[in-house]
């Protein structure tokens, strides 16, 4: 019998979809061992009624603590206390940056084993075994824990399902650790750049570092116009961080998850953090000058070449085709 504690990331009245998926997954796993799944929320005046809705995804109890949102160490303080006081053996996170940070910190605090980027969890002899793709997703490794285990899911690894339950909300007070007390979140969730809509697009033309500079997005805007209709331009985290494209158009780990009919990637290497946000696209076309770029491992059509030469001609050809 093993209990599982799941972190539910909260922002402006809603819980993160990946956290909800982790609760569903945690409830399934705990039930298989004969244990229970509980959720943890840390935030400012989150209503009990909202916290109780996590029961719909499978949480038996919701441990609710007051604390700053968007920082990992206060979450570690609360989860470590709840796990120790209640004899909880495993913690599960739905992925995302704060989950990675909190999972790692919690492993250090509790002297537990930790596995990141987990895509599947199984139960064997009442214990959890985490499955993690490694080496650019060319192999899957299984993690077994000596005692306590911290499992951090890959983005979109676990699907949220509702079951109609309601959770008991338990207020907890955890003394902030010295490290948690020395960080202050000044502002959270600032949207940088224009508000571009990429989630409804049927065709996405996405650009990465290989564009060379912000002007490279001009080429992609023209290509998107040539495709016409329901086409939008998207970007990787690296170029958004560099200020080349608005955050609202970012795909991947800390951005959006999309599944358009056509995803055309220009100058994108295909790092895992990007792949997790677009791998469900129906057709993936990649243009990259590096024949070893990981994106060619999961594209349907890969073009090895200079996007500066290919994209303008492709734009012309598509415009001509559509005009014909």
């Amino acid at each position, binding site marked *: 019998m093993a209990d599982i504690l799941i972190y539910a990331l909260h922002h402006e009245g809603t819980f993160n979809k990946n956290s909800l998926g982790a609760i569903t997954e945690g409830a399934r796993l705990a039930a298989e061992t004969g244990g229970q799944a509980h959720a943890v929320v840390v935030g400012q005046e989150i209503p009990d009624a909202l916290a109780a809705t996590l029961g719909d995804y499978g949480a038996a109890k919701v441990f609710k603590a007051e604390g700053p949102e968007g920082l990992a160490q206060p979450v570690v303080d609360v989860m470590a206390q709840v796990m120790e006081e209640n004899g909880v053996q495993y913690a599960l996170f739905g992925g995302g940056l704060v989950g990675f940070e909190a999972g790692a*910190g919690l492993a250090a605090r509790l002297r*537990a084993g930790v596995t*990141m980027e987990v895509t599947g969890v199984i139960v064997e002899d009442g214990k959890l075994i985490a499955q993690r793709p490694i080496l650019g997703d060319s192999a899957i490794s299984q993690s077994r824990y000596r005692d306590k285990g911290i499992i951090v899911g890959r983005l979109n690894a676990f699907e949220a399902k509702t079951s109609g339950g309601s959770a008991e909300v338990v207020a907890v007070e955890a003394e902030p650790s010295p490290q948690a007390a020395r960080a202050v979140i000044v502002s959270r969730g600032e949207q940088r750049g224009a508000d571009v809509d990429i989630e409804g697009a049927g065709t996405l033309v996405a650009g990465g570092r290989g564009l060379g500079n912000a002007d490279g997005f001009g080429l992609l805007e023209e290509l998107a116009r040539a495709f016409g209709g329901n086409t939008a331009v998207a970007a990787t985290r690296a170029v958004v961080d560099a200020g080349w494209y608005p955050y609202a158009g970012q795909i991947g780990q800390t951005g959006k998850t999309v599944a358009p009919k056509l995803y055309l990637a220009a100058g994108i290497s295909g790092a895992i953090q990007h792949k997790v946000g677009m791998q469900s696209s129906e057709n993936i076309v990649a243009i990259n000058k590096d024949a070893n770029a990981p994106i060619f491992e999961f594209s349907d059509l890969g*073009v*090895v070449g200079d996007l500066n030469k290919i994209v303008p001609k492709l734009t012309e050809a598509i415009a001509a085709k559509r005009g014909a």
Partner: protein
Amino acid sequence: MKICVLVKEVPDAAVTKRIDPSTGRMDRSGEKNLNPYDTHAIEAAMQLKEGGELQIDEIVAVTMGPESAVRALHKAVSLGADRSIHLTDPVLAGSDVAATGYALASALGQEEPDLVLLGQQSDDGECYTIGAVVAEHLGMPSLTQVVKMDVTGEAVRCERQAEYGYDTVEVRLPAVISVGDAINEPRYPSLKAIMGAKKKPLQTLAAVDAGIDTSMVGADGSQVRCGEFRAPPQKAAGQIIEDDDTNATVGKIVAWLDERKLI
């Protein structure tokens, strides 16, 4: 102010990575290089030093790894670090990420740094976690994937992208900050700096020198055991076009898209 920069030796990106079936660990032989993400951390330290607003007394590069990891330290000092520390001991081999973080924190603790910097992730293990583990052991606040840092004498104001957009966080020093690759453009070392790198002080530490409890490190001290590697479900390999003649290439792309009614 003293800045410690954590660096790591990783397989060169061009070298195919593999798991050694006899040990279940990544085969780390073959060509090695400084983790490219770490060069941003060294550059961030150098810019603080050269910025002139703060008195940076020393930049110390710290790594843990076998003998060959010295090359990562040479690269780090050629990029500007003043000296380096190599934590190396057979008892550390096979440490998982939590044990590695504990060992590094032990070595760092002796240095009493005001700021610990590292890259946002390692190029090989795809871990973004070591900073948070180190910080927990040192009792320092930490933040990952930071793209802008304003350091005053007592605090660092950081900006980073998280789940809902950009967050601004102020942490009091000492702190552990992992920097994102957008924070700067790392410099290339000069020939003179490369030649001079081997002359800068390099301290080699065994586990006992760093005050490490050896029951907490190595394969035996690690709380997670990885193994039973298998291949994931394979997606059929896509078609590849090498662009020799761009007009022909574009013709092929358009035909491919047209066949699938994507235009």
